[in-house]
């Protein structure tokens, strides 16, 4: 096995035993980045010199007996997370030269734990998209099939973890942006409960839905990363003031006696037969290990898509009003132009088409005369979706289902049809609307060799149950151990 193929758990163990130094591991990853980037394009910014300095510092600290839980482990991060002194573009031309003066809360946590920063991952502009094709800097490619999308919006992140150019990473998920690319790239992606991880320093898209979480090779790795980034942050008033449980301990709980629900509405027309067969097979594996499978119903599932595409653009139109060319970012100033010209020119030239589309949609939905019909109505239906989940979680411990309706589609296939593109999030949106934790784990491959994920959804703050189910599944299967043909 080569160093870049290590899981996070393995890397931490080898570093602790002194069998590999952080400098060696970081050099190996930089080599892997040089090898794979021309084909995968997972990174927007690389920081190799800084990474080597951090690796040396981590090795020195370890020699003095000081090593955090991620000490010396090299990783890139999604470019939606502010990194002090390192360019943070959010995939947008409007932030092409933005260098944040501070770290996101979770970035500080990762640094305190000893992470070595390799660079920043490509993504759909402002996290709006399902393929990375909305990146202002060109798409990433799926390591399993370079002609396929890696998913999005955390597509560069998932592709990088799959390609071995990052030992682990952290992405963000507003409607599926961690789970969908994780599913398409054959890695683990966890969207924690809303409020589990601070949003401070995470460039805002839709504030009532955005949540950051791990993208890793194994469920055990995801548990380790979450234990580092979760916890209360007074700088985010929506961050839950709850203690962080011992996630590592939850891995070994097993599934015996757990009741797992299969929502009828997740197995409907439009679900690719290969995805359906793979997900059902994974469910029977868990049943064989002692879980009880129960069919349940989430009757408002089909309304999640229209609710999401009102609420998310509405919040985005408000959040993205800050890009006005005054304080940071692109500023287009015509010679005889006034303030209004600056606003109009800066925003029109700086934002890409999908971002403009969503700002327009959100502005319309919030505008006088339409607010009740769109935003008001969507908020009410959101309540019905939330109640559906509350009712099923009185009967079952977690839900199982597909992550996406199809395996990864080809690059270019859906760029001109936004509504079709939106449909790829149809099974992930409702968990964001209800604030629930959801995780994608590798469950198999299509005949064409593209990965297929299994989604596990739990009640609020039941990440431990997701880890127990996911880890039990990974002990019994080997899909997560396969390496892409890169």
């Amino acid at each position: 096995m080569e160093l870049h193929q290590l899981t996070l758990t393995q890397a931490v163990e080898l570093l602790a035993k002194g069998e590999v130094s952080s400098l060696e591991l970081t050099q190996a990853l930089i080599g892997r980045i040089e090898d794979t980037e021309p084909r995968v394009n997972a990174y927007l910014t690389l920081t190799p010199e800084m990474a080597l300095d951090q690796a040396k510092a981590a090795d020195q600290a370890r020699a003095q007996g000081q090593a955090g839980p991620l000490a010396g482990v090299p990783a890139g991060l999604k470019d939606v997370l502010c990194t002090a002194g390192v360019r943070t573009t959010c995939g947008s031309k409007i932030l092409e030269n933005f260098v944040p003066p501070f770290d996101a809360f979770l970035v500080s946590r990762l640094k305190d734990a000893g992470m070595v920063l390799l660079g920043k991952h490509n993504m759909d502009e402002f996290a709006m998209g399902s393929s990375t094709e909305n990146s202002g800097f060109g798409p990433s490619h799926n390591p399993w099939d370079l002609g396929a999308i890696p998913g999005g919006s955390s597509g560069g992140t998932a592709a990088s973890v799959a390609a071995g150019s990052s030992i682990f990473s952290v992405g963000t998920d507003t409607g599926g942006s961690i789970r969908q690319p994780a599913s398409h790239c054959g890695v683990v992606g966890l969207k924690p409960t809303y409020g589990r991880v601070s949003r401070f320093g995470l460039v805002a898209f839709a504030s009532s839905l955005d949540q950051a979480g791990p993208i890793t090779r194994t469920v055990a790795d995801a548990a380790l990363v979450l234990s580092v980034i979760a916890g209360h942050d007074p700088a985010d008033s929506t961050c839950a003031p709850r203690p962080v449980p011992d996630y590592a301990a939850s891995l070994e709980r097993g599934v015996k006696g757990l009741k797992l629900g299969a929502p009828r509405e997740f197995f409907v027309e439009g679900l690719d037969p290969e995805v359906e067969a793979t997900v059902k097979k994974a469910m029977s594996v868990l049943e064989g290990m002692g879980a009880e499978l129960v069919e349940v119903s989430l009757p408002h599932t089909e309304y999640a898509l229209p609710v999401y595409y009102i609420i998310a653009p509405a919040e985005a139109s408000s959040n993205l009003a800050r890009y006005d060319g005054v304080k940071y970012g692109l500023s287009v100033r015509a010679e005889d132009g006034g303030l209004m010209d600056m606003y109009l020119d800066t925003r029109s030239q700086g934002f890409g088409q999908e971002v403009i589309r969503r700002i327009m949609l959100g502005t319309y939905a919030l505008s006088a005369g339409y607010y009740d019909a769109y935003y008001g109505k969507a908020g009410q239906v959101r309540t019905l979706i939330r109640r559906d989940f509350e009712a099923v979680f009185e009967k079952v411990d977690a839900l199982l289902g597909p992550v996406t309706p199809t395996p990864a589609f080809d690059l270019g296939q859906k760029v001109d049809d936004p509504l079709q593109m939106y449909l790829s999030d149809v099974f992930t949106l409702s968990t964001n609307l209800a604030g629930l934790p959801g995780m994608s784990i590798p469950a198999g491959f299509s005949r064409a060799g593209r990965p297929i994920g299994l989604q596990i959804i739990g009640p609020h703050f039941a990440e431990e149950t997701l880890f127990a189910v996911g880890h039990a599944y990974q002990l019994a299967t080997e899909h997560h151990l396969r390496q892409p043909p890169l």
Partner: protein
Amino acid sequence: MKISPSEVAHVAVLARLRLSEEMSQKLTGQLNDILTAMDKLAELDTSGVPGTNHALELNGAMRPDQARPCLGHGQALANAPDSDGQSFIVPRVI
């Protein structure tokens, strides 16, 4: 038609966006498709259902009202498109 070309133009001004003629036309078509898909919500009777703005009921997070360190002048202005070292400079407002 859910949204007319003149409404698209009006919304663009509200959103502080300058749209080319081509972009305007394309957006009018796409927004109409998307808004038509949203009509699905009208199937549901939601009278008496309270709205959800946030998935978790975390109301009124409080903290002591204490002064804390904040970004210094230089840091705050470091990304400014134009500044005199003290303030952000913008084009003439009036």
